[in-house]
């Protein structure tokens, strides 16, 4: 069996982590969830993740800063930005600064799984994004 993908998920809304963690765990990822960007940054400095999923708009530290920190520490890490306030300029800024992908809320856990699967392929560690049972927690209900 391939090694587990190490994923850090950061969103200041607790519901996001609560919904997405089981969905990603089901496809064989090891997921650490954070609501506080400072704690997430602290963890990022101590551990190298394969994929970081971060909200853009948060108090104190925004997702773009997280992106910059992650890529400074580990350029191979794929950073996926999520936001409920998607706009073209923000999306372009994130991509320019090295984000791997950008998703607007609301999205379903399945949407995120597909992006994670794409990132995993780019990392050379393909995973099967179809494993999850849609009836289970983390199924198709939207993450706001």
């Amino acid at each position, binding site marked *: 069996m391939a090694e587990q993908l190490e994923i850090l998920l950061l969103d200041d809304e607790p519901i996001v982590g609560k919904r997405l963690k089981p969905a990603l765990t089901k496809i064989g990822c090891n997921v650490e969830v954070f609501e506080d960007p400072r704690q997430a940054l602290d963890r990022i400095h101590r551990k190298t993740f394969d994929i970081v999923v971060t909200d853009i708009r948060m108090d104190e530290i925004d997702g773009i800063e997280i992106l910059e920190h992650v890529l400074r520490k580990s350029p191979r890490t794929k950073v996926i930005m999520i936001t409920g306030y*998607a*706009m*073209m300029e923000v*999306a*372009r*800024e994130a*991509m*320019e600064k*090295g*984000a791997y*992908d*950008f*998703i*607007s809320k609301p999205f379903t856990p399945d*949407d995120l799984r597909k*992006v994670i699967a794409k990132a995993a392929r780019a990392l050379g560690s393909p995973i099967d994004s179809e494993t999850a049972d849609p009836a289970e927690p983390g199924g198709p209900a939207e993450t706001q």
Partner: protein
Amino acid sequence: MPVVTLSSDSHPLGREIAVRAATALGYDCVDREILSAVADRHDVPETDLHKALEESPSPFGISSKNHARYLAYIEEATLAVLLKDHVVCSGLAAHLYVRGISHVLKIRILADPQKLAGEISSGRTPSFEKVSALLKRRERFRRRWSLAAYRVDETDPSVYDMVISLTRIDPDEAVQTIVETTGYRKFQPMTYSLKCLKDKALASRVRVALIDRFPDVRVQADGSSVVVQTKALEREKQKKTEVIKKLAGEFPEVAAVEVQILPDIFRKAAESFR
């Protein structure tokens, strides 16, 4: 890779640069040749589709209703092509209806004014004053056209990601610049921008399905939900809502339809005078 839309104050020049950029990128080039298929599909004269892209509605030309209808047909067909990716699109006013999509690189090519004036005045070389007046008139006309059709001023440089003036840059350099810019990270497709384009394409298809019966209709899509806006008198509200829900609901991608009926104040006022 990003999609490229190319607009120009000279359609032949815009087309020439678009073809060359597409060849250099290994993309398809889409121009007004798609209008023949659009005309066949909707059973309208192809010449009227060309006119809709060049002329504003007028009492002696295309009516406002037909103008909106023809542009809706063109928009639907163009968005379907843009969804296929690896495309350079010119001459179809795409820069006016794909705004806000980050992986669409919007380029404006400005012709050399002297050459453009010669083109407009059928090869004659007018004086400097005449050139200036001619170009100003043409710019005013295009501004009016784009504002009437899409509420966007196409002569405003902020509409574009890049404006290239061929007075000082030669066409080879322009093509090279376009090709290089498509490599910038900020213009690469992402899940969000691809979804935005898909939403626009779906909205345009639903609008085409409704526009014959509801000429003022506006449609927005978000995933499988569409919001349809039209005007009606109070007594027509229910019937119109039902028809719109039925027609929009026929698209397999559409799961939910919200209809917003706005009061038709002009018809209401007209009726009150009867």
